[in-house]
């Protein structure tokens, strides 16, 4: 960032005496020098966090206010409001989505990813406004959706708008949206670590100090803002959680398997219904959110108002054993139905909170059933509810690391880390086995976008230098030897290029033809080291990604691969042909289908 005025190099006019700049001007110039782009981007991340935090505070107030205004402070079953309000609000939301904010349909996570990978960090600011209004009405009126995904997108939109205003580099502009997304998600969950991990794991997909610093700063600053205004009370009152006997891990593994199956059911329901409802005539889109609202209202009216909205209060109650296992299981199933229809109808809102809800109810139900058959199990219902939350997070959203840290961060209890890891792993594996495409990738493909699948990236086998490495050549020349001696060694060989061991370390390369020419030119009395360039060849290590070799193979016919512990020990060599041959045999660009 430089100011053209202050950076002017024009010579002063001879008529005007040279004046020393004043103190403010000097300070300004000094600051200009300090704020190079990396530092500026980090500071900007703090502001993104602050603005996102402020926006999320307003968003949460909007949801609460809408809820109070439309449904009252504590809705009871069999109230006409439960039946009517979500449907009527659905009509309003549908009209707004179709006519005013058409870009807010879909997942905020995917739109943030699209901004990162396709649109150079661009997310329209209108998206933030649209998400704020429509999601506020939808969630506040009781649609079975959560505020986290809209918060994430509001944060991303704010960051993107700010970045565009500031004309920062394209590389940084692309990263603005994920940084804002982390801030939005952290503010919504009041959980900065989980938000950072989620954005790294699901949106950005790579770790680097620059990105991590910005994401962490924005997440932390947004959480500080939210806690400042809304208090630092956790989302749930965590009950006493216990894990005493390692054998109980089997019980949690069963929970993981059940959670994995539920995740697949949930994801497949959305994957099946969403494109079909979207393909219906446009006029039906006006009524789809209303019909989803009617379904949610009916469920609530008939005795399960817990399925409405994000459902954090009900999760809290489940955690404290207020529901029997039958009701917990019914709530889990009803929430899957309600959330599926709310989401596929195009109503703006997220699936984070419903995922936690389903997991919590399922966890409580499975735990209670297990204790009926095995009364010696020591885990309380609250423990299973907590573990269940992570299970669905891992299985449905397919973010295994985030799911573990989310449970730990929400519960503040590290005693249950082992059950959480075990259950989440089983859930993740079951979900992966039965549903090859993660839900976010599925939604992206249904929307006609092809974004990198970060789960596939994580699972993809990385080609390394050792995969393309050729064996150590039989003939290695010594730079301390004379040209004629080396020429005699190579004259009967068929190799075109030879590695030369330099003294005291390093490697160089010389072609057979070049060596013989030197000999013919009468330079046989010279050592190779006196003739070859002083600069040695670059070396590679066997464990480096093969992509690293691409930088050198065009410039050098052979690149030595050396041992990390002893750079004089040659492990093999890399050539252009060997690299391309390896890529050619193992890599083909595949365009995934949406099915």
């Amino acid at each position, binding site marked *: *960032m430089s*100011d053209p005025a202050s950076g002017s190099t024009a010579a002063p006019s001879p008529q005007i005496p040279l004046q020393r700049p004043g103190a403010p001007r000097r300070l300004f110039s000094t600051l200009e020098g300090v704020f190079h782009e990396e530092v500026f981007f980090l500071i900007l991340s703090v502001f993104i966090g*602050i*603005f996102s935090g*402020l926006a999320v505070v307003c968003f949460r107030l909007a949801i609460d206010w809408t809820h109070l205004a439309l449904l009252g*402070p*504590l809705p009871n079953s069999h109230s006409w409001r439960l039946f009517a309000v979500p449907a009527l609000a659905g009509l309003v939301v549908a009209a707004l989505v179709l006519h005013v904010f058409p870009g807010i349909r879909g997942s905020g996570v995917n739109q943030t990813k699209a901004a990162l990978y396709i649109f150079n960090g661009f997310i329209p*600011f209108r998206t933030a406004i649209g998400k704020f209004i429509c999601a506020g009405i939808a969630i506040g009126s009781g649609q079975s959706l959560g505020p986290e995904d809209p918060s994430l997108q509001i944060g991303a939109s704010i960051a993107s708008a700010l970045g565009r205003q500031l004309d920062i580099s394209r590389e940084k502009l692309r990263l603005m949206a994920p940084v804002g997304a982390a801030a939005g998600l952290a503010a919504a969950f009041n959980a900065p670590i989980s938000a950072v991990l989620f954005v790294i794991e699901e949106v950005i997909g790579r770790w680097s100090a620059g990105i991590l610093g910005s994401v962490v700063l924005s997440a932390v600053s947004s959480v500080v803002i939210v806690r400042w*205004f809304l*208090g630092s009370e956790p989302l749930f009152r965590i009950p006493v959680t216990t894990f005493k006997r390692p054998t109980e891990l089997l019980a949690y593994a069963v929970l993981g398997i059940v959670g994995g199956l539920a995740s697949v059911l949930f994801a497949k329901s959305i994957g099946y219904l969403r494109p079909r409802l979207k393909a219906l005539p446009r006029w039906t889109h006006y009524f789809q959110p209303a019909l989803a609202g009617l379904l949610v209202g009916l469920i609530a009216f008939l005795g399960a108002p817990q399925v409405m909205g994000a459902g954090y209060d009900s999760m809290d109650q489940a955690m404290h054993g207020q529901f029997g296992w039958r009701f917990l299981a019914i709530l889990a199933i009803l929430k899957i139905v309600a959330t599926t229809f709310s989401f596929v109808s195009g109503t703006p809102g997220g699936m984070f909170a419903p995922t936690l809800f389903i997991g919590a109810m399922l966890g409580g139900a499975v735990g209670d059933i297990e204790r009926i058959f095995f009364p010696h199990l020591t885990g309380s219902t609250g423990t299973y509810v907590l573990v269940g939350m992570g299970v669905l997070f891992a299985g449905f959203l397919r973010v295994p690391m985030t799911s573990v840290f989310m449970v730990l961060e929400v519960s503040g209890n590290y005693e249950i880390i082992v059950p959480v890891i075990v259950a989440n792993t089983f859930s993740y594996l079951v979900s992966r086995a039965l549903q090859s495409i993660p839900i976010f990738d599925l939604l992206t493909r249904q929307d006609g976008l092809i974004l990198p699948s970060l789960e596939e990236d994580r699972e993809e086998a990385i080609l390394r230098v050792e995969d393309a490495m050729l064996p150590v050549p039989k003939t290695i020349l010594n730079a301390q030897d004379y040209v004629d001696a080396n020429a005699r060694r190579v004259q009967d060989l068929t190799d075109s290029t030879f590695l030369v061991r330099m003294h005291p370390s390093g490697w160089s390369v010389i072609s057979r033809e070049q060596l013989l020419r030197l000999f013919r030119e009468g330079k046989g009395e010279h050592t190779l080291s006196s003739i070859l360039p002083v600069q040695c060849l670059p070396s590679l290590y066997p464990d480096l990604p093969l992509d690293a070799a691409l930088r050198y193979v065009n410039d050098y016919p052979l690149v030595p691969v050396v041992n990390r512990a002893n750079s004089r020990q040659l492990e093999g060599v890399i050539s252009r042909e060997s690299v391309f041959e390896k890529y050619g045999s193992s890599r083909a660009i595949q365009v995934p289908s949406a099915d």
Partner: protein
Amino acid sequence: MSWTLPKLVPRSAPVILLILTLAAASGFAAVSHLVSRYNLNQQARGRRLYAAGLTEASAGHFDDAIDAFRAALTCDPTNSQYQLSLARALRDSGDPRLLDEAESYLIALWQRAPQDAAINLALARVAAHRGSIEDATRYYHNAMYGVWNSDPDANRNRARVELIQFLLKKNAPAQAESEIMALATALPADPASHLQTAQLFAQAQDYAGALTQYEDVLRVDPENPVALTGAGEAAYRSGNYAAAQRYLRLAANTNPQEAKVHELLFTTDLILRANPFRSHISDAERNRRITAAFAQAEDRLTECAQKNGVDLASAAATPKSASGEASADTTPTAASTASALAALQARWTATKADLKHLSSAGETDLPDTIMDVVFQIEQQTAATCGQPEGLDLALLLISQKREALSQ
């Protein structure tokens, strides 16, 4: 329709940061205003709901109270008073599943204010609902030594009384007694407190302690009918029959309708008249009492044997059979009863011959030996045939309080 924000920001980093800082400060101020307005509205709504909850709770409609308190908490989630009231309503609702939630609210409150006596008391009551003596005692003690907002001494005593009642209910009289003793040391001067403490002593079967407390009440209010009855009964239970007679007579005069008082007084009179170990009675009177008791014992033994279908004459004639080898048509219990009664009959018969030496016994052990037989018969028949009445009851009680009565 495309919305784009105009680019107003210059490219100089310090200026940008200055503008951003100003924007953040403005946003902060605006959101502060918004949040404070919202919170004020919510707090007002919360207060209304809380008041409704209190009304429902005081009427015993705990389900409605819980709903109201929950709604109040949605308006003001961090309000400790709402949380405490909700926890109390959850605890008092009678639904054991709600105890967990009540406890979690209270634990959260306790973590913020571990010295708060009201929170500790509420936690103690939850623990008492669960039946956990250890937890309840801990929290009750915390409540006693915690900070009360008003009238700390009375509240502390009330908490201790609650703990004592819980311990008595859980059949932990030793722990209860130590708490009652502590309570007795810190009592205010009013008779009601002493009366309550006396009743607690009596429930813990510390009748001497109860008598002391009743006497404290009677010093202030000599005609208090409850204290007179209580003192009489406490003296009676502790074997202090002279005092019992005195208090029970006063109680009977004060409250002639009380049947229990008359019943106790009747037994007390009998005890005092029948007790051969009473000091300051002549030898002749002592011998008369022993002889009467001995005769009464035989009647009681015979009556009890008949009641159980035991023929004492044949049982005595076949002592081997009576001593344990039951016949084919007799159960082991019946056989052992017959054996025990027959053995007593044999002992009574053997002692009867010594009765005529009673007048010349002087300082020998004969009176004690004879009364031992009487006491054994009364105790065995009480065990076999149930609680006796009249003189038999008096003799049984004398046997139980012999040491106290001889003093």
